[in-house]
């Protein structure tokens, strides 16, 4: 068993209105920091899990992301295992 690092990004589904992202985009527009088409806000999680392989780690992290870190009604997630 080794300690393996995983990153999880959780974001609202593209169809779901994101008031925070929209507010940030509006602010950027007012600050005249370049032309920003859209901003989507999300959450980033850094997990360190104990697993025998990268595959096993990914399986564990996917389960966690699906069941806890995201709400499937409105969010999607991506998992990245660090080498």
């Amino acid at each position, binding site marked *: 068993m080794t300690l393996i690092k995983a990153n999880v990004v959780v974001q*609202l589904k593209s*169809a*779901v*209105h994101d*008031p*925070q992202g929209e*507010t940030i985009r509006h602010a950027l527009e007012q600050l005249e920091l370049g032309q920003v088409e859209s901003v989507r806000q999300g959450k980033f999680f850094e997990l360190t899990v104990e697993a025998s392989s990268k595959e096993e780690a990914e399986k564990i992290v996917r389960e966690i992301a699906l069941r*806890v*870190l995201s*709400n499937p*009604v*409105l969010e999607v997630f991506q998992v990245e295992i660090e080498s």
Partner: protein
Amino acid sequence: MPRFAVCVFPGSNCEEDVQYALQNVLGEPTDLVWHKDTSLEGYDAAILPGGFAHGDYLRPGAVARFSPIMTAIQKMADEGKPVIGICNGFQMLQEAGLLPGAMLRNQTLTYICRYLHLRPEQLDSPLTSGLSEGELLRIPIGHADGNFYADDETLETLERNDRVVFRYVNAQGAREDTANPNGAANAIAGVRNERGNVLGLMPHPDRCYQEELGTADGRKLFESLIAWTKERT
């Protein structure tokens, strides 16, 4: 005589208000039940109160739904007993999959504590059975994440099957954007499950059960709940 359970999670903060309304004001035996308990045996109805269970960290209700008590809540729901989620409790029921949809941040991105007008859409629910046709309620909200979201298909099902129980309206009882405090889809403030015994609402009847607090309209919802429960026990 029915017995009511109010479930307490770390970070809950409206449990005593619900208990006070049911027990001290309306005289119904009501117990606070700790979230680590595993049974609601002996209770005829359960309420998940408002607050910030687990600090609302991650998402409101997201951690609470894994508490041991939630298994007992699921069981009560399956048995057809009333399970009511108020505010944070509503969010827990959504996270647990007992009620549809999810809550987004309020459109204003701020917490909103305010009295508003609420239109009961169905009068055959545990909280509305004692109301009369066309009656508007003045009830406060207090939340940062009450912007009800569901995909179009779900929304349509909810509307078609009379599962929207409360809607935000203006003083005349009509839907209007400015009367929708948080941007909720279809101005939805409360919904029920298919069977009708699990009901969640964002407004707080537990903050307006006596005139001196603003209005006593919340009392009517609790009286409905008591009557509804008594009829079924």
